[in-house]
């Protein structure tokens, strides 16, 4: 994938040491990455694999033990690079004594935005994240999902070119998660670059262009999502307007056999639980008062 390199790490290594300088834990080992403009990049890995360490190193929250990290061509320690970055931490670590407007005003000031820009963007983003009716409530009274939404708004207040999202769908209900994924897709359309860490692999699969999989601080896999997930030894055929029957099964098996393969299984595709859930919720909105009764389902 061609394009301007926004983030680059060269042999980026992070070793945690104890008070006496003895090596305690290697969080990241010689990571080499390139993230290009306009892509959605996923960082995957089990707990303790080095995802958050990588993000913290890129943001200057940690200092590398070895190697280098560059964002927009500037060293990660250079705070001026942060002018074009929006960051949503894993937990929405915001000041809980502030309300939504005050929160966005505060973070707007940190970007040196003038009062008018701050007000306009704060108003827009509060509406966009669906907190218009709660703008005056202090964050302490917000649910986790609401805090995640206002957290995203603060990450977007500077209209960043690079958005770093640590577990963006954490704490969100399926509706919220879908909304977040749509928003990330929108950001891609606007030409912004997104880096996201997530444990929800289906989210990553849905929206990421490229991914890196880390384990125990080492890069295990790195590349285009479709290419990585592609199983070249298997074939998937989707068709509509036909029912499975013996003759269709027999004919297909013959065709596959003729080409040297064999049919493993054949059946109707299932939707994802997320899609099913969203459809049900949408329908319930369209038909208020309708109830699901188990006894009727049995009939």
């Amino acid at each position, binding site marked *: 994938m061609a394009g301007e390199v926004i983030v680059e790490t060269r042999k980026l290594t992070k070793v*945690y040491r104890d008070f006496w300088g003895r090596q305690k834990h290697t969080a990241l080992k010689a990571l080499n990455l390139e993230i290009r403009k306009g892509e959605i990049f996923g960082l995957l890995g089990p707990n303790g694999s080095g995802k958050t360490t990588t993000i913290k190193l890129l943001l200057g*929250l*940690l200092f590398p033990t070895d190697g280098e990290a560059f964002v927009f061509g500037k060293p990660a320690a250079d705070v001026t690079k942060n002018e074009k970055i929006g960051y949503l931490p894993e937990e929405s670590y915001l000041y809980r*004594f502030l309300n939504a407007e005050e929160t966005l005003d505060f973070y707007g*000031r*940190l970007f040196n935005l003038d009062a008018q820009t701050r007000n306009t963007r704060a108003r827009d983003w509060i509406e966009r994240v669906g907190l218009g009716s709660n703008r005056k409530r202090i964050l302490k009274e917000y649910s986790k999902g609401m805090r995640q939404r206002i957290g995203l708004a603060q990450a977007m207040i500077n209209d960043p070119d690079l958005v770093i999202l640590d577990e963006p769908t954490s704490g969100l209900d399926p509706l919220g998660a879908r909304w977040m994924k749509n928003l990330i897709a929108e950001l891609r359309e606007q030409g912004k670059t997104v880096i996201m860490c997530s444990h929800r692999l289906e989210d990553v699969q849905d929206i990421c262009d490229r991914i890196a999989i880390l384990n125990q601080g080492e890069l295990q896999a790195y590349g285009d999502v479709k290419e990585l997930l592609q199983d070249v030894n298997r074939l998937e055929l989707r068709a509509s307007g036909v029912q499975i029957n013996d003759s269709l099964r027999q004919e297909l098996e013959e065709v596959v056999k003729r080409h040297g393969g064999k049919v493993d299984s054949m059946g109707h595709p299932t939707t994802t639980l997320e899609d099913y859930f969203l459809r049900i919720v949408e329908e319930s909105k369209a038909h208020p008062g309708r109830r699901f009764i188990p006894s009727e389902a049995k009939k």
Partner: protein
Amino acid sequence: MDQTLFATLILERDPLRWEDVPTGILSWIQVAGGIAAIGLILWTLFGWTRMSKADSERIPAWKKMAFAILAGSGLILFTIVLGLKATLLGQEGSADAQRQKLQEALQTLAGLLSLGAASLPLMINLPRMSGRRIFGLAKLSFQEAVRRRVVYAFAALLLVFLFSSWFIPYKPEDQVRSYVQVVYWAMTPLFLLTSALLAAFSIPADIRNQTIHTIITKPVERFEIVLGRFLGFTALMSLIMVAMTALSLLYVLRGVDPAAAAESLKARKPFYGDLSFLNTDDSRKGDNVGREFEYRSYIAGPGMGGRGPATAVWNFPFPPSSLTSRNKVRCEFTFDIYRTTKGRENRGVACSFIFTTWRFREGDERKYEAEKRQALQDRKGRSDADIENELAEKYGYYPYPSKPITDYHTLFLDIPAGLFRNALKEDPARLNELKGANRPINPITVKVNCLDPTQYVGMARYDFYFREDDQDSPYEKFHFAVNFFKGAYGLWLRMCLVIGLSVAMSTYLTGVISLLITFILFLGGLVQDFIQQVAAGANPGGGPMESLFRLVRRENMAAPLEQTTANQIATNSDVAFRWIMRRLLDLIPDIDRLDFTLFVAEGFDISSAQLVLNSLVLFGYLLPWALLSYFLLKWREIGSS
């Protein structure tokens, strides 16, 4: 009324004056520069050696060059200074005095260079700092403190307002002093403790809760966080302080009875002179009568001590011209009496006062007396005061033959303002005459003698003064109110000190440890005099080792030690201890100077020079801490905490 309340301003240290500024700045450069040099050595050993090649290459060449030149030359000069100091040990003489001067100059230059090197990264970062960001962070701190209901803590002051009057003496001469001291003493711990708690725990809480991650990941210079926290808490506490001071003032004004108010609600503007003594062993001191508190020294009555009459002499500089437009100028004094006999019952000890100006010629006192007798006979419609004024202006002389002095009361004399007019007149002939005779030019001199043969009268420099303000002014209450707020400014300065220290410490340490260190430094500041004595080896009993030896052997702390090997080891190890104490003294704030309570309570104006100079001292003290906090936060891995 002949005697007012007992209003004694005991100043064991001279207040700061504008003349002290150049020396103060030089001393600050030397001390702060020394600390910066130690910091540079530590960084070279532990920071520079660990810096990666890539990071080192990214630093622009001019920055590296500037830093190397400043730090290198600073450290070399400090090494030379240390060498000079070693050669100067135990030597005296004019050649060594010159070398001493050279050493001072080199130390100042070395300090300046080291400070330049240490502050270079901050200086380079300064233009990047934004007022809007700092304001945002300050506002956040303000909101945080308000919404955490810190203001409620100040409701505790209501207890003082409600109940303290039960315990305050009703005697008019003590009432204002007691009221003022009670409200300041109540406000002081309340403000200092609350400020320290707020400031010490804010950044550590941000780090613990990771809220700081959302700040650090913005284009924020880390020092902006320090400044924002400091300014936010200071702003909030300042507002509360203004409100609390106004309430306290109201409480004092409403609480005191009219007699006490008339006597004590003042803000005198004293005009001080220098004190010396005649016919005593030491011209800087009078006799020692054995009082434990050695603030005052004493002059004996006639015939005691086998010398001429002991005289206390105050020499005043040229007075302000505002004094000449009046008829009289009040001088006030508070002397202590040491009685060797009971004396006469209900009678004070008599003292004589002679006021002269630099234009007064010896022998003119006879002319003055003769002319005064003549004028009193031939008044021509003039009052006694008019005649004294005319003569004082003519001769630069005014005697007050006998004034009974009573213990524990501030007494006064009204001096003809003509004396001051005489002092301010131009007189080139007299000036040349004095210069020709190589005699000092003392614009105004006051000589005090004790007239009672069996008594001593004790005095210190600040016990006698002229009042620059008008004692009959109808605005004395207003001046007191203004002075009350100036007194609160002293508390404000101490509060800034506590907030500054706590914020600086909390950039690296936990909240509890930051709070503890702040309090230790503050307490160190409160007992700075004692630490100074220990550091100088001037305290009785010696240093810790010597004291331990004395304790173990049950030796008297005043008795000289035997010259045994063990004792020598003890006294020598105390030398090293004293060196450490002297270095520690540089880290301890001068709290005493920031406390103006006594001025307000005793009814003395706090001059604007004092306010400004003490603010400068505080600024100078906090500046190195600010620099330290800059580096501590800059080098701290926030993400790993």
